[in-house]
């Protein structure tokens, strides 16, 4: 056998070892070539009577991350081409055959008659773990980095190479479904407790124990190929099955709002597969896999959540030629909630922090926030006391700007007021080393105007963190007119140091994310004014795919802030720039009823000390009209929530605030939870097609108001049948 990706050895006892070690790659992945070679080896092992069995292991630090998603994308392109040349049915048949090749290959291994052992060290995920599941014995190391799992669901796919069928035959049905839904990376102990792996051994005993299992004379027979096999939960149509399936279907809906076809496909594949013998079960799984592979949701999620996010994390927008910034110490001015949170995240990632406020007392209070967050982690068993101590040792509270003298980056997070910010900039400049980059964590004030306070505006940049900083994975990096490349490179390097994802946006009121979010909240307010029951506004927004209803979100952000933003917009741009109904509603809530949001426990919701929040009954009196819920068009409501945000995203492209569709998409999912199954705001538009989106906007504008009127750019793109990725995605090639 002529192998490129594997090394094949046979020892004196007749036990083979297949070492997976792809040249020129840090991680093994499943490619067409890997499948070709694996197929040859399976045939060879099966055919040679001298070979007793085979151990498969990795020659790298990790076992494998699974299938090459690029390969899956390519199969989709081939399908589209083949439809043109050979027609729909032939193309689909070829696509189906191609998409189940891995599944058939694993089944061939499983039924080859020879025992196969997967010897796993490091991560073994997705298609690679499905390979392990097809082996007759799975041994993992106690290496702290060892993880197994089937995370396909996170990019809109599901385990389609036998994963659903084998997991459902190893575990109780309810637990199997949960494992497949969650897509978690499991530690060795957890995987063993679940019955997914057979043994845990020290790293240096891995190969020996794998060979020993074969030498002991164990058979190459999967449990489900034994005629006496019974699935752990018994038959689907049994009292036990009746306990599991109705709830599984309902929990699917609860967790996904029925927006994630891959999760539903898991239910289908397991339900149907458990009623069939293995080969037919695998075929049915393949039918669902081919179906899901071609779904808009999978394509959009793979692109945004895997490809684009990976590219942005690797510095797709980083200026070429700028040396890596060394950030050992960061100065943070303002120890309020945001400043304290940024300090925590920086210290958590090994950066020293000088946390400055007007008084030492205020700075200490900011540091105490880190103590609180770490203590919560300790209470949950996720951190140790020593880790808290070392983290806290990295944060130096101070009331003296002189502490900025040896900082590699300074971030201000002072009160959102132009004069307060200007003062912080002046004081910082006097203390900073010359040339140090200064970042402003503003959410509303334009960076260009703030930079005018600095002697070197090219060194000023915006870093818009989202709250709560420790959980939100996005940072908007805002370029002022004069922001230089070094400032951008430093900001991006810092964001990566914090293990967050950056998007780079040009200066504008509200930047990118908040503009979309404000539209979302406004749509909720307007529905309220139309008489839609408040619970329906909230529930339908979640059904549309948003993580939080607009009224809840507004409560979190604070209603008086929404009121102030509206008044500021009115002052700057005139009364026609705001919606009078929205103004009236906020005026009622904030000024007449003193309802400020969660912060005073009174917003759209009441927040009792004990028990969960519930909608304020007084809301009914603020609605002058009441709509009949049974007569409302729920699908239209969902569209309104998503379209208002997508349309705003399109405007930011048109205005040059967003220059790369990947950033709009990734930013929308990470920053404000925009329906992830769409792939993000612009993928939502591209996915339905720009002409269709324009028609939809026209219809919504007629029915619900001119705010839905499509923009010139969209109309132009529709006429030319362009997409955002087609027209604005050129950076991808340059990156």
């Amino acid at each position, binding site marked *: 056998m002529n192998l490129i990706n594997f090394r094949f050895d046979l020892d004196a006892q007749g036990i083979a070892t297949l070492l997976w070690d792809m040249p020129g790659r840090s991680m093994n992945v499943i490619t067409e070539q890997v499948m070709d070679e694996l197929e040859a080896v399976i045939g060879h092992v099966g055919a040679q009577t001298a070979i007793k069995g085979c151990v498969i292991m990795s020659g790298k630090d990790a076992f494998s991350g699974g299938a090459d998603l690029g390969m899956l994308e390519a199969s989709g392109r081939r399908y589209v081409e083949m439809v043109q040349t050979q027609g729909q049915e032939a193309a689909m048949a070829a696509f189906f055959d191609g998409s189940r090749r891995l599944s058939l290959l694993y089944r061939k291994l499983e039924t080859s008659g020879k025992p196969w052992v997967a010897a796993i060290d490091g991560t073994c995920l997705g298609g690679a773990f499905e390979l392990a599941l097809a082996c007759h014995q799975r041994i993992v190391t106690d290496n702290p980095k060892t993880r197994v799992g089937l995370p396909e669901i996170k990019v809109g796919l599901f385990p389609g190479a036998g994963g659903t069928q084998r997991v459902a035959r190893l575990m109780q049905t309810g637990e199997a479904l949960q494992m497949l839904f969650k897509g978690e990376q499991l530690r060795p102990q957890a995987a063993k407790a679940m019955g997914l792996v057979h043994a845990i051994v020290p790293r240096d005993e891995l190969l020996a124990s794998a060979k020993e299992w074969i030498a002991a004379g164990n058979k190459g027979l999967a449990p489900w190929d034994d005629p006496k096999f019974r699935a752990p939960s018994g038959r689907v149509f049994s009292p036990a099955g009746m306990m599991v399936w109705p709830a599984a*279907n309902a929990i699917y809906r*609860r967790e996904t709002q029925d927006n994630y076809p891959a999760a*539903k496909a898991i239910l289908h594949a397991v339900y149907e597969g458990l009623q069939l013998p293995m080969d037919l079960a695998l075929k049915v799984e393949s039918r669902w896999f081919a179906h899901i592979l071609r779904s808009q949701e999978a394509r959009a999620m793979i692109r945004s959540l895997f490809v684009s996010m990976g590219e942005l994390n690797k510095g797709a927008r980083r200026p070429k030629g700028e040396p890596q910034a060394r950030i050992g110490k960061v100065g943070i001015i303002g120890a309020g909630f945001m400043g304290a949170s940024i300090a925590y995240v920086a210290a958590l990632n090994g950066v020293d922090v000088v946390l400055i406020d007007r008084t030492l007392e205020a700075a200490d209070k900011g540091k105490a926030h880190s103590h609180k967050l770490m203590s919560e982690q300790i209470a949950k068993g996720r951190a140790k006391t020593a880790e808290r101590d070392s983290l806290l040792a990295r944060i130096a509270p101070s009331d003296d700007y002189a502490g900025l003298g040896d900082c590699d980056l300074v971030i201000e997070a002072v009160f959102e007021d132009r004069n307060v910010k200007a003062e912080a900039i002046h004081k910082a400049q006097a203390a900073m080393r010359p040339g140090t980059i200064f970042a402003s964590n503003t959410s509303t004030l334009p960076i260009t105007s703030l930079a005018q306070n600095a002697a070197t505006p090219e060194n000023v940049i915006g870093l818009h963190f989202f709250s709560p900083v420790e959980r939100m994975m996005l940072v908007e990096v805002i370029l002022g007119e004069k922001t230089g490349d070094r400032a951008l490179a430093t900001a991006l390097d810092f964001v990566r140091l914090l293990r967050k994802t950056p998007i780079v946006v040009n200066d504008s009121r509200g930047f990118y994310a908040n503009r979309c979010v404000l539209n979302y909240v406004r749509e909720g307010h307007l529905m309220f004014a139309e008489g839609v029951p408040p619970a329906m506004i909230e*529930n339908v927004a979640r059904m549309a795919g948003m993580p939080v209803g607009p009224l809840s979100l507004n409560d979190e952000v604070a209603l008086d802030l929404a009121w102030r933003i509206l008044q500021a917009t009115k002052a700057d741009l005139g009364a026609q720039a705001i919606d009078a109904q929205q103004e009236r509603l906020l005026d009622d809530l904030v000024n007449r009823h003193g309802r400020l949001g969660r912060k005073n426990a009174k917003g759209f919701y009441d927040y009792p000390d004990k028990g969960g929040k*519930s909608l304020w009954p007084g809301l009914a009196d603020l609605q002058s009209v009441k709509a009949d819920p049974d007569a409302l068009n729920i699908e239209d409501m969902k569209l309104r929530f998503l379209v208002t945000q997508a349309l705003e995203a399109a405007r930011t492209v048109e205005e040059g605030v967003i220059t790369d569709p990947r950033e709009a998409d990734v930013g929308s999912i990470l920053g404000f939870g925009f329906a992830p199954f769409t792939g993000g705001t612009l993928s939502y538009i591209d996915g339905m097609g720009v002409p269709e989106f324009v028609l939809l906007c026209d219809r919504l504008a007629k029915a619900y108001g001119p705010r839905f009127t499509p923009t010139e750019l969209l109309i132009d793109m529709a006429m030319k049948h362009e997409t955002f990725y087609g027209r604005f995605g050129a950076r991808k090639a340059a990156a």
Partner: protein
Amino acid sequence: MADAFIYDHVRTPRGRGKPDGALHEVSTLGLATSALTALRLRSHLDTQLVDDVILGCVDPVGEAGGDIARAAALASGYGNEVPGIQINRFCASGLDAVNFAAAQVMAGQHDMAIGGGVESMSRVGIGASGGAWPVDPAIAIPSYFMPQGISADLIATKYGFSREQVDAYAVQSQRRAAAAWDNGHFNASVVPVRDINGLTILARDEHMRPATDLASLAQLKPSFVMMAEQGGFNAVAIQAHPEIERLRHVHHAGNSSGIVDGAAAVLVGNGEAGKAAGLKPRARIRAFANIGSEPALMLTGPVDVTRKVLKRAGMSIGDIDLFEVNEAFASVVLRFMQAFDLDAARVNVNGGAIALGHPLGATGAMLIGTVLDELERSGKSTALVTLCIGAGMGTATIIERV
């Protein structure tokens, strides 16, 4: 089109549907045979006139499987020539069996047929026959499947029925059922179930709790709280009816239909067949209808199907003297009365399934007999019988005395 007349009706008493229930020792076949034999004997029925025996049964598996109707016809001495067929439309099966019999008669294809039903819930068990609807993702998910009790709670939440209201309704059902027994209102139709020696096994409905009052019901915890929360069904209910912030769980064993065993049979035929059998028609089946309704609410089908059958019959709600609306859950009947703004004095006047129990496949046929007896007793003429049905359906039948 021929008229379909009702010539007779019998039912067994309803035994508590548990191993300690009196009818637990009686097989499904035995229950059906009790009803069919009684019908044959008391009408001195020439069974050669019977073209078919149609029996509803909701869990037709095990001893209730394999066409229980043919087995029961044979075991009841109807003779080899009388066929049988078992049908299933969940809770309306017994009424649909009567309607199917009537439809054949009206169409001129049968002269006389029996519609009825049987269910031994204590022996076969609810849900024993399985089915795709609750479990197959291909239908459970798009149809917003929920256990019926949670749909009943959804109805109560959506249409604003409080715990006090549903409990008050249940107390009324118990009082009315007790009064009906005390005053002999069921005597004309209930035939005792006897053993092979002629000894009585059960002669009277066994599930009733006449002493029930609001205070005793208030002690009961709602039944579906945990299932709805842990099983994800609260979310399903809310996604189907998103104007609801939170589901209020108000139903419990005391305001839901009782699980019981029983059987019933209704003799239907055209005028000539009645004459040939020497029987006098008691009522005419004027119209019937079936409908599908919103599947998440599931149990509001009686409202939709009543509108449909009234239209079909050219009648209005005011033309109906008495209603039998199956008391699957209290909120079902409360919603029915709310939708048509009905006076409670016209609805379920002898109590219903909350007090008496609901032997799934048989109930529809029992309600026809109960309301016919009441029309005759009270001198009224027209009645409407309707049942809510799993997966969101409704069946209704209008009868009028002749």
